[in-house]
């Protein structure tokens, strides 16, 4: 942990997308999602842990994910989140938009 990890605030709204993406791979509880995002980004992305929960509530309220009580890998009671069909659709939309955006940014940077 020598260098400072980048906080995920460069792309507002991308936290939702990251959560959806994570859950599209496997069902996880809150802490698991944080860990997964950090690990799969090689600790480049550091989720502000407190912000995770409002985001989860928002996603659930929109019907994109669904939380049920279950048990974690080390046998503790936790709410395990699953992605719903509507969530997968939303993920596809956001992925497309994200791709467009990064492409556009890359073009600008390339032109410079």
């Amino acid at each position, binding site marked *: 942990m020598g260098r400072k990890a980048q906080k995920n605030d460069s792309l507002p709204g991308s936290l939702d997308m990251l959560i959806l993406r994570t859950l599209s791979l496997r069902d996880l*509880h*809150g*802490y698991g999602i*944080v860990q997964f995002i950090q690990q799969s980004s090689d600790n480049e992305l550091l989720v*502000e*842990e*407190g*912000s*995770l*929960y*409002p985001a*989860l*509530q*928002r996603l659930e*309220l929109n*019907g994109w994910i669904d939380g049920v*009580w279950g048990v*974690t890998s080390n046998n*503790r*009671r*936790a*709410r395990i989140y699953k992605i719903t069909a509507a969530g997968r659709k939303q993920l596809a939309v956001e992925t497309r938009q994200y791709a467009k955006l990064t492409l556009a940014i890359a073009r600008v940077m390339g032109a410079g």
Partner: protein
Amino acid sequence: MTDVLRRLRYWIESAKRSEALREEMELHLAEKAAELQADGMTAERARSEARRRFGNVGLKHEESREIWVTRFWSELGQDVRYGCRTMTANKAFSALAVLSLALGIGANTAIYSFMESILLRSLPVADPESLVVLNWHSRPPQEGSREWVIHGLQGLFWPGDKGTLVSGIFPYAAFETLREGNPVFSTLFGYFNGHNRNLAVRGQAASASSEYVTGDYFRGLEVLPAAGRLINSEDERAGAAAVAVISFATSQNRFGGPANAIGQSILVDNIPFTVIGVTPPEFFGVDPAVAPDLYLPLHTNVLVDGTGAARMYGDGNFYWIEMMGRLRPGVSIAQAQAALAPHFHQWVATTAKTDGERANLPALILNPGAEGLGSLRRQYSKPLYVLLAMVGLILAITCANIANLLLARAAARRREMAVRLSLGAGRFRVVRQLLTESVMLASLGGALGVLFAIWGVRSLTLLLSNGREDFTLHAELNWSVLGVTAALSVVCGLLFGLAPAIQSTSPDVMPALKNGRGGGPRRRAQHVLVVAQIAVSFLLLVAAGLFVRTLNKLHSVQLGYARENILLFSLNARQAGHRDPEMATFYANLRKRFESIPGVSSATLSQSSIISAGMAGGAYRGTMKIGAVTGVTIVGAGVMAAGPRFLTTMQIPILAGREIDERDQPGSPSVAVISERLARTYFGNENPLGRRVTFVDEKRDLEIVGVSANVRYGGLKEGSPMTVFTAASQFPPDRVTYALRVAGDPLTYVRSVHEVVREADSRIPVTNVFTQAAEIDRTISREITFSKLCTGFAVLALLIACVGLYGTVSYSVARQVGEIGIRMALGAQRGAVVWMVLHRVLLLAAVGLAISVPAALSASQLVKSFLFETQPNDPGTLALAGVVLLSAAILAGYAPARRASRIDPLAALRHE
């Protein structure tokens, strides 16, 4: 919409979810701390580090909660605040809308609370659903034939399907037969109406309604006493002490509370009883129409009514006792009926004496008993449905009116909506906000309406009871009524808010943004609403016209006797222990004493008032012959026992001979005075004086000593002018009605009357104190109620429709300012402009009328049974209603028309 539902569910589960969220966060912190600890931190440091990285736990929790909780409600709060602002910005509009809604909702609530108390409420006993009432139905014998297994009836019966009679009264033996070994009832109990009795408590006499009940009555109803104990089967045994149970209200009025009443001695028609118990406050027996003050064991009627009453127990052809049963658990009414009907049939067949009787036996039917006996339902359900239909129509036009005003306002707010929509507000969001506004209006209207309803219920009770002391119909605003009112308010709000909300947010916002003036469809919608209001108002006007006309017809019926300056009241000396022949003297002496009260010019007595004669039973009901012993049978005449000076007091002209007077004593020859119609019918131009009337069943001959003018005897509608007056001294009634002819207001003599009666015998209560006019009006109370209410309703409807018309026309005039300006600039006269506007008003009214006249013609058939000497399609009434409507429309349209004609063409064109 599922979105809204999910939000609502989240909100409802908010406490649970909040707890779950907390647990989730705790777990997160614990896992984080564990990880940090595994990396080598001390437990304590790891925990605080985990917290530090997480951020403010409480704040995050609050933020997460807000996502599901507040968005929904904060938006609602915004809408409500915005609604309040809009409402206060348009004070006149809001006040008008709220007031008219309050009237509409209040009227509906008042009528509905009556319906609820009569048609929907269950008996206040345990498990009312398992109670059943036993009835029978049978074809009554054809005219002339007397072959019917039912030789006598004492109780109520009413018409059923296809010309049958339905009743709930049975012979006592039927009750015993059905009670014994029936597999379907856990209890079967009987009762019969003992009517009004003289109840004396510590020497104070008053009239009290009574019910005779079998020993299982209270056990079957599962009623628990408020004090003491209730009547049980022990009290029914031969030789048991005479005991009585009184109602809660009676215990309070007569004893000062339930506890004080227990063990007290009372006199019921001068027979001693002991009070053993008090019923609970909410209990009113099995018939909401009766609500007895006094419950007596069944067989004590022999004590009270004399040994003659014992005969009814043994007579299998005399029908009098009513029955109710409580179903055993798991038994349905249909099963019970299937089990009991053959049983009853078998029994009733044994009471038939001839083949004719056997051919037409009554058949047993079981009806649900949860609501109690249906006498009030039968009497009031149809009038209440008619009234409910009317107030429903009023509410409908109120809604139409507000929708109309909102449409006009929506047009004015169209730019606002267009701006909001183009700035990105969701259409649903804007509609929701508009609906919140209209539901707020409606809720305010509903709240105010409850106040109107309280007042309405009071005045309607007053109107319906019409001075009757024993009026038992009590409506109240309970939770179920208030719930309906609340639902009604919300539905109204949605109803009148939805169309304007959807229209004003229609997606084509561009034209609105461009010119700010609305297009065509809204005006059409407004016109449709106005036409509908006019049509409905016309319906109500026609109804009011028909009922007022009916009342006028009833009031113009030739009574043949005096209506004013007469005081009526009743006494029942037999119930206070007087017996024949002393009783007749007692009554006769009282009459003289009443006559000596200063201001009383004459006093008389009769078995009942003339208007209610026949209801109380005539002096004689059997076959009558006239002329000689072998003479002609009289058909359709009433017999009334009357005392001296009856014709004088009632101001009935004596056409020949004399009236009944002091000469007619029990020992002297029986006399009769007949009415002119009777004399003409049977004697033509011959002199009837000295001829005879024969009461065949009693084998009595009466000499005709006088001829009176015709009187409307027994009811304004169906009254007959054929009357035989007999001398009260020779045909003594138990209960008499005195009539005093007085100077000035009859009611000022009531005190003197009470004094005279108290002096004569303090045990006798004075009952049914009315003026003659009130007594007559009592028989047409429904017609009076209807004509008053309907007139009120029609005026209200007309007013609302006029406001709607005025609003619509004003609005369209405001929008046509430019056009009118051009016309006037081109030389149009003011008159022409007025006519242009009025022309439109009349067109709208005419279309409304054209729709409404056929509707009125068919709808008025429904109220045919409420009318008297008035055809449902009475052309005069229709024409009058049309004229009133058109004049009102012109009046409503004239103000905007005048305003249009005052438009300054220059100003108008500049404005354009």
